[in-house]
């Protein structure tokens, strides 16, 4: 079976404050993941 997650999260488009609070995944394609482990921050 499969689960698809679609969600809104902050992105920072201005080069000036890039990275300040933008969402980014902390996983890779093909990774094994378990319930409760971080997908992104």
């Amino acid at each position, binding site marked *: *079976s499969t*689960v698809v997650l679609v*969600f809104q999260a902050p992105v920072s488009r*201005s*080069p*000036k404050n890039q990275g300040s609070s933008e969402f980014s995944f902390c996983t890779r394609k093909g990774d094994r993941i378990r*319930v409760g482990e*971080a*997908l992104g*921050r």
Partner: protein
Amino acid sequence: SSSSQGNSFLVPGATVATILMLGALHARRLYDDKKVEDAREKGLEFEFHPDVKATFLQLLPLRSISRYWGLLTSVEIPVWLRPYVYRAWARAFHSNLEEAAMPLDEYATLRDFFVRSLKEGSRPIDPDPRCLVSPVDGIILRFGELKAAGAMIEQVKGFSYSVSSLLGANSLLPMITEETTHAESSELENTPKDQSNKSWWRVSLASPKVWDPVASSPMKGLFYCVIYLKPGDYHRIHSPIDWNVLVRRHFSGRLFPVNERATRTIRNLYVENERVVLEGQWQEGFMGIAAIGATNIGSIELFIEPELRTNRPRKKFFHSEPPEERIYEPEGVGVMLKKGDEMAAFNMG
């Protein structure tokens, strides 16, 4: 007397037949997986390519087969036989039996075992409040940001499906407008010092109080992640973050397999298949989760709505049948879930 003797062999006979069938299926799967793995190691990514087997699958009564499989796995197994059957399952599909919450002989049927909960503490939840966690055990197939209007998610190289067809025509999904997209891309290309053109500049001129890219709170992007659960994985679905579930949408659909092969041979696989979509809001905006069934795992149970039944017999199959929708009360607030809460489960048949 011969018929009564036949009866006493029914359950063990059916169990042995099932195990043999699983064994044959598993051997074939291992062979296929090996081929795909070799290709992947060589850096090859299979492209979308429908084939005869996929066409043949479309002719099969997969929902009925799935329900029959559910009936078969609902047959109560004798207590003495249960540990052997579940250990065989665990060996075949690489399940971790140590995590099962109950002793093996307390799972009366394979179906009960399949939807087992885990021992306390087996799945610690990442405590970082800014962290979004995985709702399931599985393999990350795809993830990223949806940028273009008419947001599409790649099913496999060469074929994509639209997010709105997956979530439903009246999804709460925020629209990504061309303007936004343009503004975003122009902003990336044009640093603030380049003031010459582009709609982004026009917006800031026309309403400087509405949007100042330097001082305003971060914009919102739309992200997605696709996770595949193998048959041996833990099949309960947990909440990825603190959120309010506002609406549930049930699409009664096909039940194609969703393995790697199916993703590259069956068009719109996730949009065609039976699925349950939960939508709502979290602190950063929209949150949507689609749980998609498959032939062997055709049932999706919601702990927040126990009475929902999926994979029901239907007289006719209308492709464009609208989903059955339910708004959770109180409207606008819905059901509140905490990160890590159990919220749903897949089951066999």
